[in-house]
C-alpha cells in the first residue's frame, strides 16, 4: 500500500468520525465542544504518527542504500594469488578514503597479498587531503609487507600533484592499469629482490 493511500484512509477516518460526533451531539453545543477538544488532538496525533513513521522508514532505506553504495564503490579485487586491485572511481572524500584504506589493509591481511595495484583512472580531481591519504595508504600497505603500485594518474592529476608539491618519491607509479599489472607480476613472478625495496 502506498503512503498517500494510507494517509488518505487515516484522514478520511478522522473526518468520518468527526462528522458522526457532530450528528450525535448537535443538540448540545457545550458537550460537542468538549468532545471535539479532546478528539482533535488525539486524531491529529494519530495522523502525524502514521505520516512520520512512513518518512522514517523511507529515510532508513535511503541510509542503508547509501551505505551499500559506499561499500560497493570501493571493491578490492583479487586478480590472482597474492595480487589485489583497488579501482577507485568517483569522488574521494575523507570518510570514503578512510574506509578504503581499512578495507584494503584487512584484505591484504586475509588474502596474504604481496602486491596491490591502486588504479585511480576514475578519479577526476584530487586535492591535498586525498593525495596525502593515498600516500598514507601506500605506506601502511608497505608496513604490512605489501608493495603498492599506483596506476592511471591522468595528466591533470599529475599536474595537480606537482603543483601541490606532494611527495610521491616513494610511490611506485605506472601509466596505466595494464602496465601496473605487468609491473605487479614482475614483482610476484621473479623472486623478491635482495636489496631493500624502498626508494
Amino acid at each position, binding site marked *: 500500500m502506498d503512503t498517500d493511500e494510507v494517509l488518505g484512509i487515516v484522514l478520511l477516518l478522522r473526518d468520518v468520525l468527526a462528522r458522526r460526533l457532530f450528528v450525535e451531539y448537535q443538540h448540545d453545543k457545550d458537550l460537542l465542544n468538549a468532545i471535539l477538544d479532546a478528539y482533535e488532538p488525539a486524531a491529529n496525533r494519530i495522523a502525524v504518527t502514521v505520516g512520520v513513521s512512513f518518512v522514517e522508514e523511507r529515510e532508513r532505506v535511503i541510509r542503508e542504500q547509501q551505505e551499500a553504495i559506499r561499500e560497493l564503490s570501493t571493491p578490492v579485487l583479487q586478480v590472482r594469488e597474492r595480487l589485489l586491485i583497488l579501482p577507485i572511481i568517483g569522488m574521494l572524500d575523507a570518510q570514503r578514503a578512510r574506509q578504503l*584504506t*581499512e578495507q584494503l*589493509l*584487512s584484505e*591484504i*591481511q586475509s588474502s*596474504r*597479498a*604481496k602486491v596491490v595495484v591502486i588504479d585511480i583512472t576514475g578519479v577526476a580531481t584530487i586535492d591535498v587531503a586525498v593525495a596525502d591519504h593515498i600516500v*598514507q595508504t601506500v*605506506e*601502511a*600497505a*608497505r*608496513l*604490512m*609487507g*605489501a608493495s603498492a603500485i599506483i596506476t592511471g594518474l591522468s595528466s591533470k592529476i599529475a599536474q595537480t600533484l606537482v603543483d601541490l608539491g606532494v611527495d610521491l618519491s616513494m610511490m611506485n607509479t605506472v601509466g596505466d592499469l595494464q602496465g601496473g599489472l605487468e609491473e605487479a607480476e614482475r614483482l610476484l613472478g621473479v*623472486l*623478491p629482490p*635482495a636489496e*631493500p*625495496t*624502498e626508494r
Partner: protein
Amino acid sequence: MPHRVAILAQDHNLIAAIQSDLSDSEVLELRDDLAERIGRRRVRGIVVDVTALDVIDSFVARALREIAVLARLRGAETIIVGIQPDVAIAMVQFKLNLTPLRTALDLDEALGLLECAR
C-alpha cells in the same frame, strides 16, 4: 631475557615473537638481547613478530629501527612481520618511520625473503 618475548633460533635465523604489549624497558632488553645473540650463533636473519602488539609507538618504532641497524652492523638482516591494519594506519598517521626496516606479512613470507637474500 624478557618473559614476554620468545626468541627462537631456526637455522641461521632468530625469530623474536612478541607475546603482548611491552614496557619501554622490556623493549630495550629485547634489543640488547638480540644484539648479543647475533654474535653467539652466526645469525644471518632476524624476524620480529609484532602480531600481538596493539600499539606501536615512537619508542617501539625507534627500538625496532635500532635493532635493524645493530643487526646490520653485525651482519644480519631484520624483517618485521605481522603489523596489524589498525596499527599500520596509526603508525602512518603519526608519521612513524620504519624506513631502514623491511616488513613482511607473516613469518612464512619473512623466512622466504631471508632465504632469497642469502
